């Protein structure tokens, strides 16, 4: 029940904020902040509770309520380690994005927060749904408010960007909807039970070809969200034009729903088809890594640059998901969290800069460190995080993904590793152009205030914590990851001998992984720290 309340809470706070916005500009902010904070506390409470009493069920807690029984549609919510992590990320970034827009948004404050909270509610719904209809429902619910956020409070080219965002995600979402319906009907025709229940649909038997087609519908929706290369073009526009809070939520959460969908739905529902699709997905992932990095390097617009960094980082996620082993999957989960934090932080910095100097063009910046040392220092932390500096969360994620996918596909992984080198180039370019170098103009600007420092400090604490103690995340997500990887490998194990050469069998890989993973924090950091020393000489 508490899960349903989470969504209801956000929605009702959103409505309240809208109403309150008629009288007062502060009230909506306070209401929404309170709402999201309550959500955060509930998630933390669930987290702590979960670690104390470990239930035998797969779900930490779940809630079922009938909705439209005529179609077999239920309100079925469940939370396991993965979704708990994602929820924590949602509410954390939610709080920060409300704080970040505290001064930025000056008109229609009530409506702004209404939209913000509805996006968050939709995202929460996506991470909780265990009914495919409900999942699609939430998937769409998060779009419209996001569209409003971009098209009303965005920057100069907002209408175009909002259109593009909406049409890309809506068109791909409808394809997914067709697939969901297809799955529903196939399952119904086989068993006579027409239901959208995730757990029942898991056991659907279908012809390989049907499975592949249905899977494609899902995959397209998710990789559009993940902004994998051929479908990435909405992302730079949307990120650039959105207000800060919008960018943070887009990068930090909306992209993650794609990855979450792949892990939660595509792999368990279509294990064999996923195996067929894996090479393509991994190639797309690698292309995204490199292409995103290349384009990030070429941008002059700070927000656009960060957006392409996201494309590159999401490539790692795709690569890791389709490596089908526990280690890479752990890395993916890690990447989902740390990317949300680090890119969110970069967007907040970009937004703060934009607010102060009214440009996002990095050619006009330069030498800002002397003016804004606090912002510079914070910028340094997150730039280093996104280039994968050891000691910060992103490093753990990327190294896990790379090692994991090395087992699955050596050649591609080697190519993907180049992405790390490229990352140093684009990331250092940010520092160089924005904070170091000579001043292009005489900016008269204020440094971060207390509120902004609060935001940034909490973000940097998280990212350093995750870099030093990744087990916090890894342990929580472990059961889900083992489940997913186990299910996908188990079902295909018996298929062919040939597959085993390509992908290591579950036992072998898992055992190997565990050893590496446990020794990871101290073992892996040392060799790279030297590289770091070299880089600082830039």
């Amino acid at each position, binding site marked *: 029940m508490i899960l349903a309340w989470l969504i209801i809470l956000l929605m009702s706070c959103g409505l309240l904020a809208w109403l309150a916005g008629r009288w007062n500009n502060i009230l909506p902010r306070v209401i929404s902040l309170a709402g999201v904070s309550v959500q955060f506390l509930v998630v933390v409470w669930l987290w702590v509770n979960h670690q104390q009493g470990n239930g035998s069920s797969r779900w930490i807690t779940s809630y079922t309520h009938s909705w*439209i029984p005529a179609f077999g549609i239920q309100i079925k919510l469940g939370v396991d380690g993965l979704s708990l992590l994602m929820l924590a990320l949602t509410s954390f970034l939610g709080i920060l994005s409300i704080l970040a827009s505290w001064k930025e948004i000056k008109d229609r404050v009530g409506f702004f927060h209404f939209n913000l909270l509805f996006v968050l509610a939709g995202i929460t719904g996506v991470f909780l749904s265990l009914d495919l209809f409900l999942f699609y429902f939430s998937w769409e619910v998060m779009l419209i408010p996001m569209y409003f956020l971009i098209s009303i409070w965005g920057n100069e080219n907002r209408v175009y960007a909002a259109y593009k965002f909406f049409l890309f995600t809506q068109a791909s979402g409808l394809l997914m909807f067709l697939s969901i319906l297809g799955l529903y009907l196939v399952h119904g025709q086989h068993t006579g039970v027409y239901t959208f229940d995730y757990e029942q649909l898991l056991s659907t038997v279908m012809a390989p070809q049907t499975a592949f087609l249905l899977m494609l519908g899902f995959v397209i929706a998710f990789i559009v969200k993940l902004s994998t290369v051929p479908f990435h073009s909405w992302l730079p526009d949307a990120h650039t034009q959105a207000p800060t809070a919008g960018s943070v939520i887009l990068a930090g959460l909306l992209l993650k729903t794609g990855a979450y969908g792949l892990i939660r739905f595509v792999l368990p529902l279509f294990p064999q088809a996923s195996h067929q699709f894996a090479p393509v997905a991994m190639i797309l992932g690698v292309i995204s890594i490199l292409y995103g990095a290349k384009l990030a390097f070429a941008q002059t617009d700070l927000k656009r640059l960060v957006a392409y960094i996201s494309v590159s980082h999401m490539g790692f996620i795709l690569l890791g998901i389709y490596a089908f082993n526990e280690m890479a999957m752990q890395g993916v989960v890690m990447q989902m969290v740390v990317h949300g934090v680090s890119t969110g932080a970069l967007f907040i910095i970009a937004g703060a800069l934009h607010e102060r100097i009214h440009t996002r063009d990095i050619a006009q910046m330069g030498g800002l460190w002397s003016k804004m040392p606090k912002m510079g220092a914070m910028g340094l932390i997150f730039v280093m995080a996104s280039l994968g500096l050891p000691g910060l969360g992103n490093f753990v994620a990327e190294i896990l993904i790379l090692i994991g996918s090395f087992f699955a596909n050596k050649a591609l992984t080697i190519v993907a590793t180049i992405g790390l080198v490229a990352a140093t180039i684009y990331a250092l370019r940010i520092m160089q152009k924005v904070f170091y170098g000579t001043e292009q103009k005489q900016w008269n600007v204020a440094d971060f205030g207390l509120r902004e420092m609060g935001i940034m400090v909490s973000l940097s604490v998280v990212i350093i914590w995750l870099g030093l103690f990744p087990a916090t995340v890894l342990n929580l997500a472990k059961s889900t990851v083992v489940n997913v990887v186990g299910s996908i490998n188990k079902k295909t194990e018996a298929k062919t001998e040939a597959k085993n050469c390509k992908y290591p069998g579950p036992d072998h890989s898992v055992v190997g992984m565990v050893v590496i993973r446990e020794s990871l924090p101290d073992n892996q950091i040392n060799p790279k720290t030297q590289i770091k020393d070299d880089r600082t000489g830039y």
Partner: protein
Amino acid sequence: MVILAGGILFTMILIAVKRNHRLTFITTLLVISASVIAALLQIGEKPHTIGEIAVVDRFGSYYQVLLLSATFVICIFSYISLRRFFPGKRKEEYYLLLMLAALGSCMMAISAHFISFFVSIEILTISLYTLISYYRERQKAIEAGLKYLILAAMSSSFLLFGMALVYAVSGTMSFFGLSAIMPSLNPSGILMLVAGIGLMIVGIGFKLALVPFHMWAPDVYEGASAPVSAFIASVSKGSVVALLLRLFMIADLYRYEKIMLAFTVIAVLSMLIGNLLALMQNNVKRILAYSSIAHLGYLLVAFIAGKGMGIQAATFYITIYIVTILGAFGMITVLSHSDNEAADIENYKGLFWRRPFLAGMLTIFLLSLAGIPLTAGFIGKYFLLTAGLGKAQWMLAFVLVASSVIGLFYYLRLIVTMMKQDGDAISISSPSPAPSVYGIFVLAALGVLVVSLGVCPGWLVDIVKSISP
């Protein structure tokens, strides 16, 4: 039915005795509500036939309730619109015509015979000619009325010729008789029958404004006043859909592949062309006209899927469509100035900041037309897709999805226009009159209905399931 017909006579006499707009309006509302209640009472009865010409069953009664309630709402909008446009002119006859049209459509919903079908469709159309050109001072009203007259007359002749052909082979004009006689037809007879039905499709296609019989729709919607357009889009189409479903159900015409092929082509064309042409419009009424072409195309997907699920989905969809389109046209009515209707897209610029409540409602209606979750339109579309996919109509389902993405463009455009800053909006100069309170109330009710159906549609689904034979 009888109440409605009697009510019309009564109102006519009343007008002869005393001309008073408000009085006529209230009488009309009373008559319509009485008929709704009568139709509701009918639902409990056992299905029976009236002679050969009509069937009274749950299906028919459901449609009657639906159509009459829609007329009720349109009546209120008409009252608002008439008061604003026609101060000091004779407007009482308008309600008579409206009730007559409603009578025609209710009769159509229960007819099971070609004669009753034709008579009711003529009652409906002839009242509509007059209603369309009722505001005769306006230039386009006469043009629209004439256009509708000529095209409708032509479509009626197609319909009649089709019926004649069917009668020539089967010797019966009743739907039941037709279904009884069909298995015994020889190939040439079947050919004639299919040809006759094909001609009838032309007639029905005109009424539903399906591509390629859609040319009149945008002009007529634009020329007629908003409530009348709403009537054409909702009640008139709803009744034809009811008849179409009944004809195909009873006579089981699904078995003729050629007919179904024709419908498939029509459906695909309607969905695509309706949505594509709507992209280029700047007049909200024309946009709604094209969007209604597309929506009837969507509906055909379910219709083609056939018995059982298909019928339910079509019924469900038309219900939701009627509610939504009434809201959209009602919004135009409420927002209109006394000198012109709020049809141009420019009128909506910055509406979100001038009248947030109305704009919010309009957004809900548009999102429902676009089929976005949390609104009824989404559930309707879901139902259509399930029905279509259930019969493995993948092609149609794909076209539906693709064209609804195209459709999003123009709905979004309208929403974006409403959100634009009103710095340079034109309408500031001419202060818009305060929207009528009744109007806002009705719109709010429709909006709540759309959202609640989008969130928990269970009850309507159950009703629709229970009425389909």
